């Protein structure tokens, strides 16, 4: 991994960081690079409430806030920002205000790298709106002051249209931290992780490959 001065991670939901880039985050932190995680919502509208349910629609935000803090702790993130928006409403916020929130983070932290979703290829409307806001905020900077922008994509058409990811991080050395981060988001991941237990036991290559190889695409600016 290239050495970075400061990394800024921007996602809308607690657990968005866990699956795609938590190993990358842990690797940067282990190498001494400060990482700030800005999480826009508390995932208030998550459909998983436990099975049998241990949460309600109203208690879920408090539970997910705690899970987010636990996940951040397990990765070593000491600068966690919760931006206070509401799940599934990000795309309906005022675009300019949303851009300003991201711009002020960039101004404060002057990150050398920003990690977010890839606009157009990240499925959930909140992912898309977050990604667009980050792109707008970076675009507003003079070119020589723009941080690198690396994106998570997982729509069904992402490889066909973007090509293979140009950045693949092998995060095997911090795999345990990644699994701890995923486990921390218990309300959302418990059922899925239960199905993994056996596969992890027998070191299923497909699952381990998915966990150990984190895939990112460098954002391609549209030609002007």
């Amino acid at each position, binding site marked *: 991994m290239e050495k970075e001065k400061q990394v800024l991670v921007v996602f809308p939901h607690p657990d968005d960081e866990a699956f795609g880039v938590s190993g990358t985050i842990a690797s940067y932190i282990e190498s001494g690079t400060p990482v700030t995680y800005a999480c826009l919502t508390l995932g208030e*509208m*998550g*459909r*998983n*409430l*436990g*099975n*049998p*349910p241990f949460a*309600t*629609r*109203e*208690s879920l*935000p408090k539970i997910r806030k705690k899970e987010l803090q636990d996940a951040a702790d397990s990765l070593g993130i000491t600068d966690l920002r919760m931006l206070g928006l509401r799940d*599934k409403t990000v795309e309906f916020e005022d675009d300019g205000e949303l851009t300003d929130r991201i711009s002020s983070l960039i101004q404060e932290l002057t990150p050398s790298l920003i990690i977010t979703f890839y606009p157009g290829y990240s*499925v*959930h*409307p*909140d992912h898309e709106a977050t990604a667009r806001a980050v792109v707008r905020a970076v675009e507003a900077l003079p070119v020589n002051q723009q941080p690198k922008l690396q994106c998570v994509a997982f*729509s*069904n058409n992402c490889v066909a249209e973007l090509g293979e990811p140009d950045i693949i991080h092998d995060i095997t050395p911090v795999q345990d931290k990644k699994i701890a981060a995923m486990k921390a988001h218990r309300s959302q991941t418990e*059922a899925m992780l239960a199905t993994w237990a056996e596969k992890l036991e027998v070191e299923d290559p497909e699952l381990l490959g998915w966990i150990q190889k984190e895939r990112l695409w460098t954002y391609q600016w549209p030609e002007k």
Partner: protein
Amino acid sequence: MKPIERDEVQRAIDTFAKRDVFLHLETTNGAYASHHDESFFSAGAYIRNAKVQYEHGKIVGDDPYRVGLKLEIGWVYAEGLNHFEIDEQGRLLLAGLDSTGKLAVALQISLQPFE
């Protein structure tokens, strides 16, 4: 939340009748439904803190249940409800959870606005 007990829910619905109440009503297939199955038509609706007064309300059906609230000049209803809780703030939280525990519908009634 626990499986709906119809009489208890009916009593709670009755206590909120003819008063200003705040409603949360939501239906959802989840944001990934069309990602996992591209032929799936995803639809849902959401309203939070609608201030209404209902003349009467009723829970009907036999797990899952339906709840309808008759307003002075309109209606509110939800179907597919199977779990409930009266929380520490006295709010009636009704939800429909699918076979894997995922929320598909919610109808909630409170005397104070939801956060």
